């Protein structure tokens, strides 16, 4: 109940912000009867109706994960973002092994298996991507490769 109401409210607010932003769109000398603002405003208006319906007619509450599971989900998002930024400077092998191990451990908490899965995936995928598919991946940091 509550989740749907909160989400509906968020949707309405986002849609209002979207309309406000649409009104700021610069117009140009090339114009047509509809213009660049109408369609986005139409969409946002439809979204507001949907949001209001969700506030007044919410579904049953979903099973939200417990706090510690939620924490591990947040942690996995952080580590994935970190991975996105690490891929280029540090190379493919090390970040992939670490991230894959962590994800594997989070899915099923068996440390030995997780480390093996991480390292195996890292090396295996590197070989597939680099040699079978011909992607230009860098294995290690450039500084180390000389």
């Amino acid at each position: 109940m509550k989740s749907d109401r909160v989400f509906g409210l968020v949707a309405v607010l986002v849609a209002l912000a979207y309309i406000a932003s649409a009104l700021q769109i610069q117009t140009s000398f090339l114009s047509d009867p509809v213009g660049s603002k109408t369609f986005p405003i139409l969409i946002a208006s439809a979204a507001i109706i949907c949001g209001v319906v969700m506030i007044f007619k919410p579904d049953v509450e979903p099973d939200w994960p417990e706090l510690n599971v939620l924490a591990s989900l947040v942690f996995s998002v952080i580590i994935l973002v970190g991975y996105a930024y690490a891929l280029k400077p540090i190379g493919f092998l090390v970040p992939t092994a670490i991230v894959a191990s962590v994800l594997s451990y989070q899915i099923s908490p068996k440390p030995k298996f997780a480390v093996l899965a991480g390292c195996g995936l890292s090396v295996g995928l590197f070989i597939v991507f680099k040699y079978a598919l011909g992607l230009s991946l860098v294995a290690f940091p450039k500084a180390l490769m000389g």
Partner: protein
Amino acid sequence: MDILANLALGFDIALSPYTFLLAVIGCFLGTIIGALPGLGPSNGVAILIPITFTLGLDAVAALVLLTSVYYGAMYGGRISSILLNIPGDEPAMMTTLDGFPMAKNGRAGDALVISGVASFVGALLATLGLMLLAPLLARVAYLFGPAEYFALYLLAFSTLGGIASSNQAKAALASCAGLGIAMIGLDNTTGMPRFTGGNMHLMDGVDFLVAIVGLFAVSEVFVFIESHGKNSAVGIKLGKVTIPYREIWSTRWTMLRSSVVGFIAGVLPGAGASLGSFLTYMMEKSIAGNKGGFGTGVAKGVAAPEAGNNAAAGGALVPMLTLGVPGSGTTAVLLAVLMTLNITPGPTLFADRPDVVWGLIASLLIANFVLLAMNVPMVKVFVRILSVPPALLLPGVTMISFVGIYSLSGSYFDLVLMIAFGVMGYVFRKLDIPTVPVILGILLGNQMEDNLRRAMVLSDGDWTFLFSSAIANGLWIAAVLGFVAPLFLRRFLKKPELSED
């Protein structure tokens, strides 16, 4: 005799060793993807897209590979439904109802063979239907102007929201989210930036591949982290596989009926394979009556949904190819591939690029026979793959998604955006908001707006132009009905729950 000449052209392309090899690889990968719980046709095809680009495949080759994966995944979905009582993908859900009881009765092999043959019948008939219906529909599509296209897009969103989801407001909100995201970037008509917030990366708009991989593949990892891979219960061992000829023959009418109904469900824009398997199962159940024993493990109970969902998979290709409006989540992903390859689906595709259309159709005909061979005599190979633990599979899928998207654009921004879409997909799934309309919105948003604006330019701003032709009016009526009717029908048609064990 146009069709025969066209087919000859198609087979000429499909039987070239390279294309044939791609079709076989696609079938094999597809069956694996379908069989693994957590990987369905739409996210399976989604993570393969970047790889097809890096392989440098041309349009025909890429389409043959990915549609073979699509067909293969539809076949493969039944394997985990029957053996684990977990649908390998959403359309295979109905197969668990009779498939798993059959397996518990020690007839896992029979269930796999019967459903494999049913998949073959459904997919083959649907491919033939595609061959006959698509050129006709393409001819009708020439009559479509901007007003008609605008109404057609609306129809796709409304049927997708009306039929495929349990809450209209949520589905419509998802469509709005997708359409809203599509507006980001440069305005097609005026060339002015919209909703970019001054960010250079957003000038080009949000790449739909990033959204697709994020929503379908990355969000899956979060779902599995939450459930700790608990859904991977060890299922039933498979004994010797024999072919129960008599039982297959006894389901012949079921298969034929289900194929026809499934195909029609697939052709409806937005309805897709889940509806096909649902409708066919309910239809056969009511035809058989109480004596039919549906739900206790009968052959017809596995034949009907499998013929239905595979026929719907073929049917969903019809509106995608002829009108550029996908009939399901996976065809939306395929449409994204076509658009990235600079091929515009629609009536002109049949005239300008017959090699793409007929090469695809011929490849699908061949792929069906390959899939029958893989899914009946060789089914044991795929059963073994089910024992891959999710703790290995899902990190692998994530890494492939990252490398795939990274290889396309080489920017951090897209990777972070992909993670954001993954989080969005997870939250949406928790709240029971469908994610397919988001994809459809991102894919079709700009065209929908362009068609609206073009229509208004033609009519000099007169809004009644949108209702000026019979086709447009028919589409508007269908759109309203498609959105509203399920509200009333829902009382009578309830989705059955997964059988408890």
